[in-house]
C-alpha cells in the first residue's frame, strides 16, 4: 500500500461512503468529537452521508472510508465508481470486511426469501413487498465484502471501529504514512 499524497497542492480529498451497514461506523467517526475540527482543517470532505450534500461521487478522491458490504444494485454501481475515482480505498468496519450482520441474510439464499421473511412473515399488519423499480434499489443475491468485488487498500475492522482506531488510521494517512494495522487496538473484529 502506498500512502496517499493529496491530489492538489491543497488538502487531502476525503470521502466517506455508506453501503449495506447500519451507519454505526459513521457514528463512531462522529465520536472523534473535537478532533473532527482539527481534521476539517486538513481535509476536504468531498462526499459523505454525514458531512456533505453531494449526491454524485466525485473524481480524484484521495481517501475513501467505505462502510458496509455490497448488498444492492445501488451499492454495486457506487463501489465500482468509488474504486475508479479513489486513490486509497479503506474497507471501514466489519460489514465492509466480512458482510457481518447484513451478511446473515445470505443464509436465506437470495433476495426473495429475505423480502418474504422481513416484509410478509414478520409483518404486524399491511404486509406487502416493497416494489418501486428505479427508486428502491434491488437486493443482490447476497451481501458481499467489498474486497471480494474491488481491490481494497486498507482494512479497518471493528463493529464499529472505535474512534481511537479511526483516528490512528487517519493521522497516519495525513502524515503520508501507512498505518500499522496490528494488535487488538487496531484489527480486532466485533
Amino acid at each position, binding site marked *: 500500500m502506498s500512502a496517499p499524497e493529496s491530489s492538489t497542492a491543497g488538502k487531502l480529498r476525503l470521502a466517506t461512503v455508506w453501503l449495506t451497514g447500519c451507519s454505526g461506523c459513521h457514528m463512531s467517526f462522529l465520536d472523534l468529537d473535537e478532533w473532527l475540527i482539527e481534521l476539517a482543517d486538513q481535509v476536504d470532505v468531498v462526499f459523505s452521508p454525514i458531512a456533505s450534500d453531494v449526491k454524485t461521487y466525485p473524481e480524484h478522491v484521495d481517501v475513501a472510508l467505505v462502510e458496509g458490504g455490497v448488498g444492492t444494485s445501488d451499492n454495486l454501481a457506487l463501489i465500482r465508481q468509488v474504486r475508479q475515482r479513489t486513490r486509497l480505498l479503506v*474497507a471501514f468496519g*466489519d460489514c465492509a*470486511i*466480512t*458482510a*457481518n*450482520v447484513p*451478511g*446473515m441474510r*445470505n*443464509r436465506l439464499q437470495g433476495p426473495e426469501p429475505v423480502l418474504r421473511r422481513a416484509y410478509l412473515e414478520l409483518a404486524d399488519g399491511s404486509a406487502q413487498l416493497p416494489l418501486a423499480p428505479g427508486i428502491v434499489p434491488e437486493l443482490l443475491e*447476497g451481501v458481499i*465484502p467489498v*474486497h*471480494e468485488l474491488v481491490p*481494497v487498500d486498507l*482494512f479497518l*475492522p471493528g*463493529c464499529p471501529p472505535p474512534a481511537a482506531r479511526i483516528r490512528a488510521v487517519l493521522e497516519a494517512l495525513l502524515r503520508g504514512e501507512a498505518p500499522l*494495522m*496490528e*494488535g*487488538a487496538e487496531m*484489527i*480486532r*473484529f*466485533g
Partner: protein
Amino acid sequence: MSVCTLTIDGHAVAMAAGANVLQAAREAGIRIPTLCDLEGLSPVAACRLCLVEIAGSDKLQPACMTAVAEGLEVHTATPRLRDYRRTVVEMLFTEGNHVCAVCVANGHCELQDRAVEVGMDHSRLPYRHPQRSVDLSHHCFGLDHNRCILCTRCVRVCDEVEGAHVWDVGWRGEHCRIIAGLDQPWGAVDACTDCGKCVMVCPTGALFHKGDTAEEKHDDSSRLVDLVRARQARQGSP
C-alpha cells in the same frame, strides 16, 4: 525419567521424554498459537494452528501431537508457518457464520483473539455462509452450530473429565458437526449431567448459558484447568 534436549527456534530446551513439542515450547517461553488444546484434555490436533516445521522433514507436524526427541530441531514461526496459521484462522471464520458483533462471546473469544494474533485484518478466502442450526433443547444451555469450530474440547471434557460422553462428532467434511447422544436434541440426552463443563471450555460462543446475550459469555476454560489440577493433586498425578 529420561530427558531429551531439543532446539526450538534456536533455543535449547531440556524436556522429559513423553512430553510433546507444544509443552516444550511453553516451557521455553515460546508462544505457539492454539485453539483445540487445553491443559487437562488429551491433545487431538484438530485446529492445526500449532503446526511446526521439523528439520529434515517436509511434512508439517502439530506440536501438540509431536513427541519430543533427542536432537529434534523445531521451527515455530517461519514465514510459511505464519502464512498457514493466518489461513487456518481465515478458514475457521469463513466456513462457519461468525458474526462477532452480536455473539455472546464477543470480547472473550479465543477465535477472535487468534485472528488478532495471526494478523487477520480480513479474509483472503470467500465467506461460505453455510446453513447451520441452533439447539436450544437443553434447559440451561444452548449450542449454536454457526459458531462451532469443531475443536472438540466439549467432546473431550465430557468424556475425559465428566465421564458422561454426551458429545461426539458426526458426519464428515462440510457437514461435520458436534452431536449430542445419538444425534439427538441435547435436552433429550439422559446422560447429560447439566454440569456445564462443555460450556466452560468452549473457545467461542458455540456453547453458551441460556439468557446470555452479546458479550456476556466469559472465557471460563481456566476454571476447568484448575479443576483438573486439583483433581490430579488429590489423586496423585498420573
